[in-house]
């Protein structure tokens, strides 16, 4: 299998040498390749309106109202189902989105450049907790908040970043995984570092003190603000792997609330999908597994890089959120070394004696060991607009990896590499 090992070595070099850097912000329409006013991007693999679950439908409805294409939910729903709106995965437009992950043309996005390969990735700003678009809420307060983010938060952050210059997000994450974050569901340290880095620049922007205070108050209220930086940073680090011939390394894992999808280096843009699972975890008072939507969001791009659930050992506080003990967190990380290729040279985990995080998921190892990647995640209510109902641990369906393995062997047969 030497040529496979050589191909995987190439893929891992790409990942290990990635330099995801925040270089600015822009509006989706002008920034995301292929974006237009009647395109709605979403989390996960491709899906039609008919198959969308509650939270994603709600987010689409909210997105269309925010975009000015509909003036109320009934109009928005009719438009969404009419065939006039084009839907596409964020992933197919160099973007990622948490939970429903809906992106419409007027939304501001962060621009991450992978300086080592020259590719870009994009993500909207994190709205905060409570009733928000990414959980499928679309009431007037949601739209009002999105408008504040577009008209006040975005111009100030954009200008602040122009004053600050490029921000090394890899460096931020490398620090924060040694401060108790895993950059998926524990982002407190990364967000704190981000605010610290940008504070002086925010104060130098040409904006009112009143607006600057609101910006700081908002950033301070939202522990997960930098999830929307760690996600595109991971995306930018991994995307070039999708061109490495013969490599069995996974470069995308994502969910749309109905299906889980993966993409594998050698198989390029092909999706391997299976029904998304219901999350096992801790539910907020009054909610249970019966209320849960299946797994949703592009945020598992963090696990694909070796952070998130793969680095749970370094974020023991997260077990208060997803359940289990801090020993369970260590056990999860330890298991992930069985299905990955190398240890990260950048993301070193103190509770693992500073071992690098498990990096480079290999479909052969997943199928051989039957150990599935571990993802920790928020749980959305299955009805649009209710919001988050808990958090827990989930795995991709094994079928995704088995189908990918079968397709990989077929590809090698086609290439004449197999007897």
């Amino acid at each position: 299998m030497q040529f496979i090992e050589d191909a995987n070595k190439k893929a891992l070099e790409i990942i290990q040498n990635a330099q995801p850097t925040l270089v600015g912000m822009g509006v989706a329409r002008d920034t995301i390749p292929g974006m237009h006013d009647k395109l709605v991007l979403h989390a996960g693999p491709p899906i039609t309106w008919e198959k969308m679950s509650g939270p994603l439908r709600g987010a689409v409805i909210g997105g269309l109202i925010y975009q000015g294409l509909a003036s109320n939910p009934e109009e928005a729903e009719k438009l969404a189902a009419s065939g006039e709106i084009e839907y596409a995965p964020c992933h197919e437009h160099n973007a990622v989105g948490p939970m429903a992950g809906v992106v419409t043309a007027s939304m501001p996005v962060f621009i991450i450049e992978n300086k080592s390969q020259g590719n870009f990735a994009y993500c909207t700003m994190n709205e905060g907790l409570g009733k928000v678009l990414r959980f499928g809420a679309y009431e007037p307060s949601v739209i009002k908040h999105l408008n504040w983010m577009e008209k006040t938060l975005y111009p100030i952050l954009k200008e602040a970043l122009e004053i600050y210059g490029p921000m090394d997000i890899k460096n931020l994450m490398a620090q924060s995984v040694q401060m108790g974050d895993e950059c998926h569901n524990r982002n407190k340290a990364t967000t704190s570092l981000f605010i610290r880095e940008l504070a002086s620049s925010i104060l130098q922007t040409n904006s009112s003190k009143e607006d600057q205070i609101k910006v700081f108050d908002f950033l301070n209220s939202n522990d997960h603000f930098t999830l929307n930086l760690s996600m595109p940073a991971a995306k930018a680090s991994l995307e070039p792997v999708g061109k490495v011939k013969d490599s069995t390394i996974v470069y995308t894992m994502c969910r749309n609330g109905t299906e889980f999808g993966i993409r594998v280096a050698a198989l390029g843009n092909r999706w391997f999908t299976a029904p998304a699972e219901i999350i096992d975890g801790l539910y907020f008072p009054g909610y249970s597994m019966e209320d849960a939507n299946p797994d949703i969001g592009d945020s598992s791009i963090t696990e694909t890089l070796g952070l998130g659930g793969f680095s749970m050992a370094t974020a023991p506080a997260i077990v208060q959120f997803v359940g289990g003990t801090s020993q369970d967190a260590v056990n999860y990380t330890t298991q992930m070394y069985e299905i990955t290729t190398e240890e990260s040279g950048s993301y070193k985990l103190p509770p693992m004696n500073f071992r690098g995080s498990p990096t480079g998921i290999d479909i052969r190892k997943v199928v051989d060991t039957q150990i599935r990647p571990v993802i920790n995640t928020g749980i959305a209510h299955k009805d649009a607009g209710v919001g988050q109902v808990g958090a827990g641990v989930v795995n991709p369906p094994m079928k995704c990896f088995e189908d990918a393995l079968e397709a990989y062997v077929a590809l090698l047969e086609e290439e004449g590499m197999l007897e």
Partner: protein
Amino acid sequence: MSLNDLFAKELKVVNMGLESFYDDLKKQDVSAIHVQWKPSAGGDKKMSSLLGRLKGLK
């Protein structure tokens, strides 16, 4: 060394497979670890065969 000699000494056991064997040893204060071994691809013949074809490659 005969088998009787082996069992006259302190045993250190690596158990693979059925975890109940490991549990019984621990109850008797025997020094043991359990290895979570499974057959390739959980015993799935089709997947195991695909993996086998890849292992045979130069």
